[in-house]
């Protein structure tokens, strides 16, 4: 980084010469209005809102387009001079604004963007209060581009942010600008519905109300919403989100900026899931009597649970936790099971073969999401990152766009938005390091998907991958290329806590297979089928697969209704915060467990969430250690590599068949159902 001296508004500043002028000005705290410029997109320079005066230049210059390096010194070698508040600059900005407003409708009162509209804000600050345009305004037909994004095309100011986003970041060129001049229109090809799993982001990007959220249409005004910072739990990435709520309702979910994880994007599932938070909710306890669920009070329900626990032998009691449980819940559950005297607990309802025996490095995404940008080779094994974690996939695409990245894939072939070398769909291909063809790469990411690890031969495959990783030098002191892409938000925390059965206890697969357990607790576990004969207590939020099977239902809360911790696929601890209260009589899951333990006379040794956390972090220091895998990890991974097993011959199929239907909240959401229908129609 090299610094250059500039005279900005008569004052001298040192600025980074690699930046564009608009960025440099922002760095030193001078705000320049803009519409088309966006840090994460290519520069278009077509809105002209960012005009400033460059002293000596014949006309105002677009600061988003102008590199600091391109500024020329004055006649006597003085530093280049620019003015952002001079008469010239102000007049230019006013003029640009007047042109933009000439054709922009005055429909702010009925526009969903109102209150958070760049055009509104900047018109107030940089515009004039009257118009000289007395012709008819233009009008543009609205486009139907799918169930998520609503269009009011007359409002479009042609910044092309949406076009650039879909082409560059999402990697699916679906939006474009047809026609020209006054007749320019943003549309998809013949108004086909958009295809990307990241399309919702164009809503945030659109600086005006041309692209807004269809499900959120006319639901609320931005200023009446309570904003709660939280974490998305739809996949293992843990994208940072903001939950906007009004009263007891979640009105929408927006991304929060975090350059280490999601930059500023979230997937459509994360963004549009919120109608599922209100549907199919379990808001009171139920007990199944004569095959019918009957509403009961909390004390009746808890008593029934206690009775069951007391009459069952401890080793016949088991617990399976789901994909969206917080660390606190799993920890309390584990403690409860310990108190009862049973070691039958498992957080791997998909019968994943990951274990804690080989250290933390064997089950997280070691290179980190940021590390993707350093990698020069990626081997994807049995995963479709585009479906399993769309935002992470966008990061891989971002890396690919910068060039010199080799990607190979063993597994199901599909459009990942970047080209790759398809090796085949037979797990045995992993045996041949040559075929993978990443010679010369120094920092390889070995991306292993959940679908692989939950196969019967998951461990042998993983062990082979680790062996290659070790051989190719991608597990060294400064780079650990082993990357497990978790699809369950709770999985890493579950493993960190040790929510897995010890050798002589039952795993999730055993427990679900009937006969082995008589009483089974499902802590929000919905992706597993429990065979007949077992008495099932379901603690969770939605009337889904688990609740359908349950004999007792204890209503818990969703991720928007509680406080808690999640650990994402990289091993990063992140906190969710309560935005609204759980509906009806539903409670925080950990407090339900505490209640059971008290009634059982085997109380958990904490009284509130704070003391719970204190004990938890004391017991499970791994939770706190982002990335810090113990220095034994070489040894552990070598141990993993040396475990031998037979790799089967059947193809590596991706488990997630439908991106929009992966969890109980999504299955309760109408919007997700629409998307799913839309998608299946296309195929």
């Amino acid at each position, binding site marked *: 980084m090299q610094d250059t001296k500039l005279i900005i508004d008569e004052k001298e500043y040192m600025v980074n010469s690699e930046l564009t002028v608009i960025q440099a000005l922002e760095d030193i705290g001078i705000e320049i209005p803009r519409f088309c410029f966006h840090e994460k997109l290519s520069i278009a320079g077509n809105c002209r809102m960012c005009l400033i005066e460059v002293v000596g230049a014949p006309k105002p210059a677009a600061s988003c387009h102008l590199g600091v390096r391109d500024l020329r010194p004055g006649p006597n070698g003085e530093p280049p001079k620019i003015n952002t508040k001079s008469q010239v600059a102000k007049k230019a900005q006013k003029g640009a604004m007047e042109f933009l407003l000439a054709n922009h409708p005055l429909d702010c009162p009925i526009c969903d963007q109102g209150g958070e509209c760049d055009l509104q804000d900047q018109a107030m600050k940089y515009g004039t209060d009257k118009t000289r345009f007395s012709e008819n305004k233009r009008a543009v037909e609205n486009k139907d581009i799918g169930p998520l994004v609503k269009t009011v095309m007359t409002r479009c100011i042609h910044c092309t942010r949406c076009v650039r986003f879909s082409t560059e970041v999402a990697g699916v060129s679906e939006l474009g600008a047809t026609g020209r001049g006054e007749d320019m229109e943003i549309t998809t090809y*013949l108004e086909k519905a958009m295809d990307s799993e990241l399309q919702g982001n164009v809503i945030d990007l659109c600086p005006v109300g041309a692209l807004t959220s269809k499900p959120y249409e006319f639901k609320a005004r931005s200023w009446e919403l309570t904003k709660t910072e939280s974490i998305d739990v739809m996949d293992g990435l843990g994208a940072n989100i903001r939950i906007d709520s009004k009263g007891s309702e979640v009105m929408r979910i927006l991304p929060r900026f975090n350059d280490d994880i999601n930059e500023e994007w979230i997937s459509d599932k994360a963004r549009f899931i919120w109608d599922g938070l209100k549907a199919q909710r379990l808001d009171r306890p139920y007990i199944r009597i004569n095959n019918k669920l009957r509403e009961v009070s909390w004390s009746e329900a808890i008593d029934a649970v206690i009775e069951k626990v007391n009459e069952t032998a401890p080793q016949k009691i088991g617990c399976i936790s789901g994909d969206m449980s917080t660390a606190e819940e799993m920890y309390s559950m584990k403690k409860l099971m310990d108190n009862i005297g049973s070691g039958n607990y498992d957080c791997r309802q998909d019968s994943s073969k990951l274990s804690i025996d080989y250290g933390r490095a064997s089950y997280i995404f070691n290179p980190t999401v940021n590390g993707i940008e350093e990698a020069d080779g990626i081997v994807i094994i049995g995963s479709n990152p585009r479906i399993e974690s769309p935002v992470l996939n966008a990061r891989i695409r971002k890396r690919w766009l910068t060039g010199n990245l080799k990607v190979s894939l063993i597994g199901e072939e599909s459009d990942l938005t970047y080209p790759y070398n398809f090796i085949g769909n037979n797990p045995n291909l992993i045996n041949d390091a040559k075929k993978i063809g990443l010679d010369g790469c120094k920092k390889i990411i070995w991306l292993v998907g959940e679908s692989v690890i939950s196969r019967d031969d998951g461990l042998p495959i993983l062990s082979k991958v680790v062996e290659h990783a070790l051989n190719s030098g991608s597990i060294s002191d400064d780079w650990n290329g082993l990357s497990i892409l978790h699809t369950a938000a709770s999985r890493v925390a579950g493993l960190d806590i040790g929510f897995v059965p010890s050798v002589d206890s039952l795993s999730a697969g055993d427990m679900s297979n009937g006969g082995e357990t008589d009483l089974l607790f499902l802590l929000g576990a919905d992706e597993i089928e429990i065979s007949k004969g077992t008495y099932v207590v379901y603690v969770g939020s939605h009337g889904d697969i688990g609740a359908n099977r349950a004999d007792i239902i204890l209503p818990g809360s969703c991720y928007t209704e509680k406080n808690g911790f999640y650990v994402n696929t990289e091993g990063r601890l992140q906190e969710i915060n309560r935005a609204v209260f759980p509906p009806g009589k539903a409670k925080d899951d950990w407090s339900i467990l505490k209640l059971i333990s008290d009634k059982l006379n085997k109380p958990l040794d904490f009284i509130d969430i704070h003391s719970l956390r204190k004990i938890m972090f004391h017991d499970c220091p791994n939770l706190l250690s982002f990335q810090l895998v113990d220095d034994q990890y070489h040894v552990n991974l070598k141990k993993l590599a040396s475990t031998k097993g037979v790799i089967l011959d059947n193809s590596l199929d991706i488990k997630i068949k439908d991106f929009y239907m992966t969890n109980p909240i999504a299955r309760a959401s109408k919007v997700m159902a629409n998307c799913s229908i839309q998608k299946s129609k296309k195929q």
Partner: protein
Amino acid sequence: MNVRRIDLSSNEEFLFTDENKDLASREVAKYPEGRQASAIIAVLWIAQKQNNGWLSESAISHVSNFLNMQKIRTLEIATFYTMFNLSPVGKYHIQLCGTTPCMLCGAESLKKVLNNEIGEVGSLTKDNLLSWVEVECLGACCNAPMVQINDYYYEDLDETSFKKIIKDLKSGKEIKTGSYKGRLTSEPSKDPIILLDDEIEKINIKRIKPGLK
């Protein structure tokens, strides 16, 4: 206002003929490997020629596949340039220049002829023989007013000569391109009225005077 949309009424499938495929490939070969999309305008033009003067949805799809481009990108180009017609045109597609110089020299009267013979701007005769649109300056202002019919210019028109052209088109007669006032290219329409003094005349004699009889 003139929003251009593809006419979706035809579902005739478009495929390049072998000959046109060669032509298109030759265009693609002008650009470096991987930059085949740069040939888009030329290739669309070939497609339009093959498809009776307009680009159907099928043609746009075919060109997109041919150049390995997203369809929306092709559509952007096809809608940007008015040289691409997005709905069927006649065997003879007339582009009438209506810009100021032509207008001053009588483009309006030509427009009347077109209105009478073919119909409103943008219409196509029932027999698919004739269609017309109004365009901006075609760069032949010195021979105003003028029209372009398919690939050629017809200049120095007036109501009578233009009517005759249309009549000939209808009866399938060949029509003459260029000026209809007997001018050679854009030479002065009358005898020279300036630069007439002797000195200049001498210079002029030394120079070859293009076109002057």
